[in-house]
């Protein structure tokens, strides 16, 4: 099954459109040069 179909069928949230983009919180001092913004903690060494 495609991911988009799985989401349609199983998503239990109510999906109200948001105009506030989720940016995450990165309060760590480590890897200040991190640019991937993926929630990995820095350095891009992350498990998605």
């Amino acid at each position, binding site marked *: *099954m*495609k*991911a*988009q179909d*799985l*989401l349609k069928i*199983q*998503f*239990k*949230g*109510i*999906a*109200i*459109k*948001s105009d*506030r*983009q*989720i*940016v*995450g*919180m*990165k*309060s*760590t*001092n*480590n*890897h200040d040069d991190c*640019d*991937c*913004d*993926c*929630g*990995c*903690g*820095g*350095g*891009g*060494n*992350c*498990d*998605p």
Partner: protein
Amino acid sequence: MQNDNLPNEFASWLTINRACNLNCEWCYANPERFKGEANMSLETVQKSINLFKGLPLKRVILIGGEPTIHPEFLTIVKIIKTAGLVPVVITNGVKFRDKFFLSESLRAGISGITVSLKGSSDEQYAKLTGRAAFSDVIVAMKNIVESGVDHNLSITIGDELGENFDDMIAAILKSGTKWFSIDMERPLIICNKAVPSKLSPKQMADFFVKIYPSLERCGIDFVLKISIPFCLFPEGFIEKANKQKRIVSGCHIYVGRGIIIDPKGKLLPCNHFCDNPLGELGVDFSDEDGYIRFRNRPDIKEFYETLASYPHKNCQFCHDWQQCGAGCRVSWLCREASELISIQEERR
């Protein structure tokens, strides 16, 4: 790259295999589920890199399975490096016990290594991963630290590691790492059905609160990766940990920043959707322009819009929304809002 629907920067992962030299029950890529699946071919690696080169991204994160046991691991690292990108790897560490393999990897171009620590003793490793590899991983970690390469030690908390966490802290200290991260076990998607993690989100929050003082005392820099809604934590915890620079939250999936290519060349939204691709390299897109067209397809736009939406009415006015994002979206496929959002402690 100018397109209002797309992020300014991407993060990329190449899932180069599903095979592993460990067998962790909780792993989204548990090898039992992918028996006989081929390694990523060099042709698929090259096609992926050709796509990545046209997009605003720098790092290519190698992941598996266990990427270091791919027979062409060093060649893949060289291909990425030669393309002007930065190869980093997420590994269970076992192979880096071998100093020669580590030095060859660094020579090929590996610029960062994250080791996932699965337990605090050989006995616990044998029980949880099927192999008494703890001692090997500790030696590997010491080799990595000694080499000077950028590194991280990552611990994912599931129900098995919840007990005797002091032993885990002792293992972290033994590894010689300069810093570590504590992550939360996430749900799996098996046979098109999301399966929740064994610990509930609330149990996970309580556990993080419980271990925090021990983490503070251990003397090594650390971060908590929070993939559950902030409102599940007691008032003041997130604020305190944030002030101490201990929090990482968010996910590439909210803005569609991640490009994850699996061994068959399928594009995954994240590795937890390992059998559920969004599209396929070489079929739905091959280059930058094709990828932009793909991302503007109505079904793909709708997918990412849903992921970025408020999943619960309380989130609409919550001041933590942009940092919290209501946690991992895969949890929202298998848990009710009542398990994920604290109605009593909503933050407005």
